């Protein structure tokens, strides 16, 4: 027990004062009476009771001293080292990264964290409010400053391990924001330490508590699984075989033997027994897989001899891969020949380029062409020649005349290209600062165009140099200057820009869906969301409602690995990004199926593939100012955790209320003892009166009978 206000103990000088007063009081009040004759007779009888009399007198002194003692203790504000986190505004941050699913808790690390958190909540003061934050890929606040214990318990019970990492920084920012508004706030971080934590943290270290969970580091993980065409078949010839590549890592401090089984479309195609040294990787290469294979799965199995494997994390023992052959992309280039452009296009894999002279262009031939993209290089086609199909995009390069999409209003000499939005995905990795342009067409674009590059030398509104746009699902782009009158083709930026531009203009049906996503990464479905195999449907805001409803009654269905189905309604697309649908619920690991309503679903996979999470050894927090819990080094920590003992903090629990209450009780007893004769008399009088009343009632009753 310690005292917050030890100076109050000086009040102990009152003890001798009380005793002195008592000694003074022992000089009894003197009273002259007629004769002590009668009293003496009584006192002789009382002699037998003398010790008790003395005791009674001393009892009062004792009670008064006790009262003073307890009162002084109360003023000194005693505190007890109580275990637990004591706060009126508690913020619980649960690490729900994948590593928290390791089975070295009770049974998992998250369960251990859960139990400790529930214990902390249990020990909170009655008016304590609790905020529960699940720090997953993106932090979620499950309960905000609630005093409802049931709600808090429910939220904690329903916590689930996410498949990815944890954004502890954002979680801490949220927690800090909450803590700043509250007095006596404490932030409790329940984690195995496998988290990114920035050194700079605006949180007062004294209010941050780290409760580590987890003890073991034994884990093996599939770090990589790919399904690719065999190297010998890079030419892209159909019917070529595929190669599976898998990489297994061992994070245990001991070498392990693991059996890896590869399945192709459900059938085992390869079994390999690997012996992996501590903290190293082994890989398997399985070639000759049928090219028709769509899905490959790799599984880590038990040891060859059947002995148990020290592998505490299951999430990374399974991985999937889908075959995603590059689709042929048909591009028609209408122009008078442009070596730069043709070279750049031919470098894009899968591109089938058709060259047309402007004079060869006839509307019928263009419309009928099975081509995904038509490029008009310094050619302005007749309006009839511009493709109208949603499946066909258009790129204009240095248009000479106005068209339905834009109006050519003049010429700009020596424009200076600058990106309007530096983070535009089309301009990713594209450096424009060194690009010189001789001249460009001054264009007035249709309102649905979005300028990407503009001329910084012109006064506002600056004329666009590159613009992209989507009209009724049909994509188009305009480049205002000729490649021949610029040094852009000589820059590194040129092939990158065109690759990304073409990728945006003609993404292809499956090209929009990546073969693999990291957990939690959003799946963005863009462009002409096809509703039938012919691709004639339109899935955007402006399309005819009745027609679409008949054609796509279910919208886009995404089947999660656990079999649940998410339905994306094209109508629900963000109005700022028409035709763009986002599916963000990719926290489950496994194979997702995207069904555009055609019945033929396109799979993509989500794998953990995260060394940070697979390395499950509990680690210290990255910042040093967080007070570590009971166990300092991982070994001790591990032992403590294994013994099931909770990591405990101590806080000074104020006891003065108890002391003050005790003092009050003692005071009451002292008062009763002091006035005991009066109290007894009153009691006897009351008893007497009640007895009389009872007798009277009995008499009445007897008379009545």
């Amino acid at each position, binding site marked *: 027990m310690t005292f917050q206000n030890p100076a109050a103990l000086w009040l102990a000088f009152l003890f001798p004062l009380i005793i002195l007063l008592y000694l003074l*009081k*022992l*000089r*009894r*009040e*003197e*009273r*002259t*009476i*007629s*004769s*002590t*004759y*009668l*009293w*003496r*007779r*009584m*006192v002789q*009888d*009382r002699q037998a009771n003398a010790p008790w*009399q003395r005791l*009674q*007198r001393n009892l009062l002194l004792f009670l008064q001293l006790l009262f003073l003692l307890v009162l002084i203790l109360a003023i000194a504000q005693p505190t007890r080292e109580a275990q637990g986190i004591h706060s009126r505004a508690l913020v619980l941050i649960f690490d729900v990264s994948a590593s928290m699913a390791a089975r070295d808790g009770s049974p998992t690390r998250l369960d251990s964290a859960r139990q400790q958190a529930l214990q902390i909540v249990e020990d909170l003061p009655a008016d304590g409010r609790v905020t529960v934050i699940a720090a997953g890929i993106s932090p979620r606040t499950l309960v905000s400053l609630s005093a409802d214990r049931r709600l808090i318990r429910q939220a904690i019970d329903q916590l689930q391990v996410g498949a990815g990492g944890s954004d502890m920084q954002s979680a801490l920012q949220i927690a800090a924001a909450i803590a700043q508004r509250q007095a006596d706030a404490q932030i409790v971080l329940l984690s195995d330490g496998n988290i990114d934590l920035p050194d700079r943290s605006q949180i007062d270290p004294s209010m941050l508590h780290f409760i580590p969970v987890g003890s073991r580091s034994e884990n093996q993980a599939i770090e990589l699984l790919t399904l690719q065409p065999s190297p010998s078949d890079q030419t892209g010839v159909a019917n070529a075989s595929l190669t599976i590549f898998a990489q297994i890592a061992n994070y245990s401090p001991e070498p392990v033997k693991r059996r890896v089984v590869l399945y192709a479309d459900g059938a085992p195609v390869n079994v390999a027994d690997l012996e992996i040294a501590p903290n190293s990787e082994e890989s398997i290469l399985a070639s000759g897989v049928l090219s028709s294979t769509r899905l490959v799965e790799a599984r880590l199995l038990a040891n060859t001899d059947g002995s148990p494997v020290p592998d505490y994390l299951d999430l990374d023992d399974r991985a999937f891969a889908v075959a995603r052959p590059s689709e042929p992309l048909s591009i028609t280039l209408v122009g008078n020949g442009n070596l730069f452009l043709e070279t750049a296009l031919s470098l894009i894999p899968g591109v089938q380029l058709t060259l047309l002279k402007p004079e060869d262009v006839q509307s019928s031939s263009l419309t009928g062409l099975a081509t995904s993209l038509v490029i008009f290089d310094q050619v302005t086609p007749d309006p009839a020649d511009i493709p109208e199909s949603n499946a066909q995009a258009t790129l204009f390069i240095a248009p000479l005349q106005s068209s339905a999409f834009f109006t050519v209003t003049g010429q700009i000499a020596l424009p200076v290209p600058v990106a309007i939005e530096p983070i535009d995905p089309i301009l990713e990795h594209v450096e424009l600062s060194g690009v010189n342009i001789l001249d460009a067409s001054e264009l007035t674009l249709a309102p649905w165009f979005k300028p990407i590059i503009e001329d910084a030398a012109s006064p506002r509104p600056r004329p666009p140099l590159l613009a992209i746009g989507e009209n009724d699902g049909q994509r188009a782009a305009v480049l205002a200057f000729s490649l021949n009158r610029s040094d852009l083709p000589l820059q590194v930026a040129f092939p990158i820009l065109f690759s990304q531009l073409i990728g945006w203009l003609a993404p292809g049906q499956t090209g929009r869906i990546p073969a693999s996503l990291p957990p939690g990464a959003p799946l963005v479905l863009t462009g002409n969301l096809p509703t039938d195999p012919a691709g004639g449907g339109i899935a955007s805001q402006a399309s005819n409602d009745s027609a679409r409803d008949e054609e796509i009654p279910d919208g886009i269905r995404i089947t999660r690995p656990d079999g649940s189905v998410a339905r994306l309604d094209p109508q629900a697309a963000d109005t700022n990004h028409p035709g763009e649908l986002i599916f963000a619920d990719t926290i489950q690991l496994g194979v997702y199926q995207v069904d555009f309503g055609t019945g033929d679903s396109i799979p993509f996979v989500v794998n953990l593939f995260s060394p940070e999470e697979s390395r499950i050894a509990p680690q210290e927090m990255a910042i040093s100012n967080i007070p570590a819990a009971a166990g300092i080094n991982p070994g001790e920590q591990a032992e403590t955790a294994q013994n099931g003992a909770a990591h405990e903090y101590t806080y000074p629990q104020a006891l003065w209320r108890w002391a003050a209450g005790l003092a009050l009780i003692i005071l009451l007893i002292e008062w009763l003892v002091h006035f*005991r*004769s*009066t109290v*007894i*008399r009153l009691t006897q009088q009351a008893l007497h009166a009640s007895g009389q009343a009872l007798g009277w009632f009995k008499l009445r009753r007897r008379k009545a009978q």
Partner: protein
Amino acid sequence: MDQTDERFFSESFLRRLESLALQFRSLAKSQLQGERRSARRGHSIEFADFRPYTLGDDFRRIDWNAYARLERLFIKLFIAEEEITLHLLIDNSPSMDWGEPNKLGYAVRAAAAIGYIALVGLDQVTAAALFPSDGRNSESSFARFPPVRGKRSALRMFSFLQSISAVSLDPSSEPAPTPYRGLSAYAAAFSRPGSIVLFSDLMDDSWQTAVSLLRSRGNEITIIQLLAPEEISPSIDGDYRLIDSEGRPEIEISADYQTLQRYQSHLQEWQASWQSYCQSRAIAYIPVSTLLPLEELLFAWLPKQGVLR
């Protein structure tokens, strides 16, 4: 009547007192033929009985008429008409000068009233304070009102009674002043037994022997024990050092409910022991609280006890 006497008793009260008369339970020896009836047969004009003549009887009292009829000698007996002296003894120890109403004051008023009744009844009345004013037991300084008779002496008796004050006893004096010594000194001062009315709180162990002494001399004794309300039911609470007004050792008590209860039970025991003591000796014992109105004592209590009628 001077001012003091006026305050002492009102005229109407005195008139009411005249309706009362003393009653003696036993005949007291008397040399004089008083007006008081006595149970003792003596020289009087009122015939009481005959008894056979025995040698030595007065010839004059032989009933010759009876001899003529019966030829036997009989002596005529007459009811003795005696004069009895009423002794009003007031305990003026310091313990009596205490209480509210004051015990001594009450004793003086009660003694005056009874003395007046006796004077009206043509009895001889004498009064005395038991302790001399110097606190010593010496016959010389004994405060005594000489025997008087007749209503005329009432005022003198009143003023004497009023002059009685409490003395401060000196316990160190040799012999120590005790009721016994006081009473025996008083008893020595008169030879004839009479009716003694003693006003005291009896708060001394020597009272019983003193009373016994008086009783043994043939006196008719009435004890009026005066206790102040505060003595009957003390209203103290807490720790006290009780100082004796008569110089007895102090007593420390912690007065709480039980203590007071015990005190009262002791008081009752004590009074009961006096009661039985007096009963066995034909002594009238009348415990009185000074809260009791004097009229009630005189007109109700004392007639009931056979002291007055």
